């Protein structure tokens, strides 16, 4: 009896192996002093690359952009009500 070869199946969320951050021309930088933590950037980010993380020094919750996936579209900069996010030309 021939053994049926197991078919590799597609894992959920496996697109994460592709780092789309390489597409980026402009990189967003968050000014944490201006940030009011409204989380609009997290909601609108199409790449789900804005996350709430704990600041290692103060222990506060801050927003951080995962540059592995950020495509630099600028929606976060455009929608930030306090203009706390600025796009800068990225030097690679």
């Amino acid at each position, binding site marked *: 009896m021939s053994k049926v070869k197991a078919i*590799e199946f*597609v*894992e*959920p*969320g*496996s*697109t*994460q*192996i*592709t*780092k*789309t951050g390489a*597409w*980026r021309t402009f990189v967003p930088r968050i000014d944490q002093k201006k940030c009011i933590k409204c*989380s609009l950037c*997290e*909601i*609108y*980010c*199409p*790449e*789900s*690359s804005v996350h709430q993380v704990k600041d290692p020094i103060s222990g506060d919750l801050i927003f951080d952009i*995962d540059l*592995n*996936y950020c*495509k*630099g*579209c*600028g*929606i976060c*900069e*455009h*929608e930030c009500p306090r203009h706390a996010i600025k*796009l800068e030309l990225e030097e690679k």
Partner: protein
Amino acid sequence: MQNLLAPGHRACAGCSMPTVVRLVLDAAGPNTIVVSPTSCLEVTTTPFPESAWCVPWLHSLFENAAAVASGVEIALKRFHKDANVLVIGGDGSTFDIGMGSNSGMFERGHKVTYVCYDNEAYMNTGVQRSGSTPFCAHTTTTPSGEISLGNPRPKKDMPAIALAHRVPYVATASVAYPVDLRRKVKKAIETQGPSYIQVNAPCITGWTFDAGKTVEIARLAVETGLWPLFEYVNGQLTEVKKVRRPKPVEDYLKSQGRYRHLFKKPGGTEVLKQIQAMADANISKYCLVD
């Protein structure tokens, strides 16, 4: 916000569709089965052998997503399992190609939530006109030029078609109003029977604008009255998002390349008046202004 659509998908930078899908999945939760017809969504989120989906996901043909979802719902019933069944598709499959199976699903009364992200043309194949393309928009199959001012026909009124099938929950939403969108998806899922939500999703390549302006343009569509946010429960208009001071349609149109010809060509002013009349008709029909 729970993340049920993983990053690393291949949607254009600034595309509104992944945001729509993330918000829909956030509202629906992990106990959800999604069926997607062929669309930008299918192409960008599942480049083999990868998948951005963190919920069970099926790809059907262009025309039969609603039929497949009906089957999923029946199978769940048969095996006494409980899960939300969602269809997330673009306007091409919803308005044109899948119209027949949509009609069947609506009419048979399956408990399926149909979410259409409406980017108003066939963007995946290169901006061809669809039934959803608005009046006088430039697409590659309705180009503006010497003798034409773009798409000669107005947009198909899909919510009205759903209402004609006596769908118990019909709503429009926008990517610019995420709280409203999530609430509508939750309400649609709780509805006994079919539900239909049409979400305005600007497309940077087809509509031609800067990537960062995606949400702003979706917001302008609501604020001008061209995309009214309404909700019909059991055929009755129950809720409308009010617009305090409606903006002139020019504000919305001039921000997009697909309407550029209206501001240059003779005859454009006449068309702008017609589009303003469409917005005014929406404003009076849905009482958008107090």
